[in-house]
């Protein structure tokens, strides 16, 4: 059937005769994943250039800036050596790329290679950010769809009001204020949970909650708006005609369409939670990448800054791509149409 031919077909078969192309390459997924790989590589290149240019763009003498105003000339020269500042820019760039691909990411001014430091700290950031994103997704959809269903056709108007106000106010509180308030209530007043550090499993609770609660509010508002308009859609009317049970209608027909609509709108918000994680780490003295990159900026440990920002940026890019893949899995129309912008 001509109308069902995906764009992938035409693109692949333009260059190679049809019989040489294996079956799976003709599927829209192959073309979709190729495009996503392209996005990944382009973002990586962008980050490499941006992080490399940090040292390049430091006003004045970068070696002096790195060594600090009080450093002796010898120390400044040593710093210049270790940053490779006396070599031409193109060679420095090649060295930088080489360090990235060898996994060392350069040598910290203080201890060991940047790669080792990141390997030790990254898990703390990733666990908290990852769990917070998962919790956000689950809770926001449960809350958003739940409130929509409960307030359908103007029922329980009070619930709609409470929901709107509570989510708006909580969403207006920045992550570090939320974290601070959580510490006051749950650590200092009630003594239920540790106020900081990551010594025991219970230490993970408050950071995750502090990070997730804002995005839960803003995403569930988006979900509610989308669910409200999806309820007016013709395909919901069709399920009424089939007299399907409410459970089936909401879970099978409403939810997937709301998920795609809401995720399309909130992709940047979810990857932005990585930024929130960096701030949150400061509140809870969390031994993750956030505290290390902030310390590195204060102590001007440039290799650590470059490596950490590269890794954090890639994490954000990967989150974006995972969201796109999830969207395509839920709604196959996204395989074909969605542009990357």
């Amino acid at each position, binding site marked *: 059937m001509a*109308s*069902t031919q995906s764009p992938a077909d035409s693109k692949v078969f333009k260059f190679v005769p049809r019989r040489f192309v294996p079956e799976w390459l003709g599927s829209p997924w192959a073309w979709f994943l190729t495009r996503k790989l392209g996005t990944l590589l382009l*973002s990586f290149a*962008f980050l490499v250039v*941006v*992080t490399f240019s*940090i040292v390049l*763009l430091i*006003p004045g003498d970068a070696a002096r800036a790195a060594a600090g105003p009080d450093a002796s000339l010898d120390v400044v020269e040593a710093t210049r050596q270790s940053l490779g500042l006396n070599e031409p820019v193109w060679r420095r760039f090649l060295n930088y790329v080489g360090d990235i691909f060898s996994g060392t990411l350069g040598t910290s001014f203080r201890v060991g290679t940047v790669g080792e430091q990141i390997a030790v700290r990254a898990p703390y950031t990733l666990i908290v950010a990852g769990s917070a994103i998962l919790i956000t997704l689950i809770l926001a959809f449960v809350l958003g769809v739940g409130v929509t269903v409960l307030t359908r056709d*103007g029922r329980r108007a009070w619930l709609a009001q409470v929901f709107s106000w509570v989510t*708006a*106010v909580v969403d*207006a*509180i*920045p992550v*570090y*204020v939320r974290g*601070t*308030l959580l510490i*006051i209530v749950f650590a200092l007043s009630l003594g239920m949970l540790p106020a900081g550090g990551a010594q025991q499993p219970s230490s993970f609770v408050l950071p995750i909650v502090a990070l997730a609660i804002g995005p839960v509010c803003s995403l569930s508002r988006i979900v509610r708006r989308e669910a409200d308009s999806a309820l007016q*859609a*013709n*395909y919901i*009317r*069709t399920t009424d*005609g*089939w*007299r*399907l049970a409410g459970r*089936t209608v909401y879970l*099978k*027909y409403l939810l*997937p*369409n709301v998920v*795609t609509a809401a995720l399309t709108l909130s992709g*940047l918000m979810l990857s*932005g*939670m*990585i*930024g*929130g994680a*960096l*701030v949150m780490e*400061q*509140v809870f003295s969390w031994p993750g990448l*956030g505290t290390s*990159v*902030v310390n590195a*900026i*204060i102590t001007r440990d440039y290799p650590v*800054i470059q490596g950490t*920002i590269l890794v954090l*940026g890639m994490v*954000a*890019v990967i989150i974006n791509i995972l969201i796109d893949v999830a969207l395509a899995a*839920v709604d*196959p*129309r996204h395989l074909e149409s969605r542009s*990357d*912008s």
Partner: protein
Amino acid sequence: MSVTRRRPRGNAVFWAGFLLLAAFVAIAVVGPMVFSDAANRINPLEARGAPSSDNPFGTDGFGRDIFARVVTATRLTLLLTFGASLISFVVGTFVGVVVRLLGPRLQAAIIQVNAVAVAFPALILALVVASIMGSGSVPAMVAVGIAGIPMYIRLTSTLAARVVNEDYVRIAELQRVPRVVVAVRHILPNVAIPLSVAAANSTAFTLVELSSLSFIGLGVQAPDYDYGRMLNEGLAEMSGQPWGVFGPSIGMVVLGLGILLFGDGLAAMVDPKVAVQKGGITRFVEAVKAGRTQSDAGAGRTESAVVVDKLSVGTLSESGERSTLVKDVSFHIAPREILGIVGESGSGKSLTAMSIAGLAPIGLWRAARQVRIRETDMLERPDPSVLARTVSLIYQDPMSTFSPSLRMGSQLGDVFRQHLGWDSRRIHQELVDALSALSTPDPERVLRQFPHQLSGGLLQRCLIAQALLLDPELLIADEPTTALDVSVQADVLRKIYRFRADSDASVLLISHDLGVVEELCDRVLVMYHGEFVEELTPDQIRTRDVQHSYTQRLLDATLYFEGAAHGNGDR
């Protein structure tokens, strides 16, 4: 109507935000003059004091009044926030407009790179700038300002792209008006309003990001202080002075709320649609239960499969006023009969049909002496399983009839799974057989596909196949061919005809097309302003043997086209 009703709400939100912001600006201007002494007076005897009448937010580790410090910090906080927003806005919109004036290649390249930059969290971009410029108030402002630029570039270039394609810009270009003049005269004014709404909203994020930088120690440095810096210091002393963080937190949250309200209100004033969306709940009046006007059983003819007696439907306003959309319609349909209802849009045909099926929109009232489909009394609340097997429906727009995210087989099968208790294998087999019976090529493939991969004609055929399997007493086809290509229309009508031949059901066909009705129906009812005005046979339509003037006009319209088509030929 709801738009005009919500509009004042948008204004109220706007003024609430505006007043809050004005208050903060006033505090920023006057506050430091009045309070800077108290804010900086060190008094070790009163260090870490709890809130009191002298010190509403308590005192910090040096015994300084936290309230005075919050008031004083407002100036720096606002200055940095507005400064950073201004950097993002000016540079971003400038680049965004200029990009649109460049050649297509360069334009595409810049937009592609910018798309990558937009995908990074602003805080990470701000860290890059902060690590180049070091920490401090001005570097933090510049860092957050630069981090906000990609968003504005994207927004402006998207908005500008829309304007550039407008006719008046094209005409200006044809008249060789210089590009810069085009940008200033045409592009900027037209993107200004959406941009200012976006600017208000993004200023709220700027505030949070700036104070975040101060909070993590990369922004404002002691002895200066903004809200973020105060929170940072308050947090360090929190075990000894838990009150220290409340003052700056409150300032932070109220200021953020003010900016958000201002932005929301601005958006609502500019675009009333947004106000309605955000207002959220459309209030529906509680549906009036279907009322039986008079119990008069036995009135229907015994040979009729469908009996509708004096059905009225209408709306109920919030104040309780009733209006009537469908008035006292009565009709009956025999088994294997196709009854057509014709009329212009808004005449109440669909509403009549949907009310019979028990699917009228919520918020309407419905009353009738009798609505019966075979043994099922539709005025009672029949069991869903019975209903599902009693009435099947075909809708007007097949492309939106099905959920876009489910395969056809999955959604067509649910009704059998829930109401007939069939297992998946049986559902699949029966659907394949039914589609084959309607001479569908490759039915297995149709069931595997998603709605957007199928044509409108095929989608309608899926519903007809489903109806064949459900074997209902009544099939309601609501303008089933209106949204289809002319070439497919005849095929769908043929399948409905086929359905009638294969089952014992009655068919109610709704259309505004007399030609369709004449071909297919056994009897035709003409509906006008919610009432039946005339009952016709297909022969009467053919011979133009009609009484009512509305029917006459309908016929004139059709015959005009037929006359034009067959003008000088004999059939």
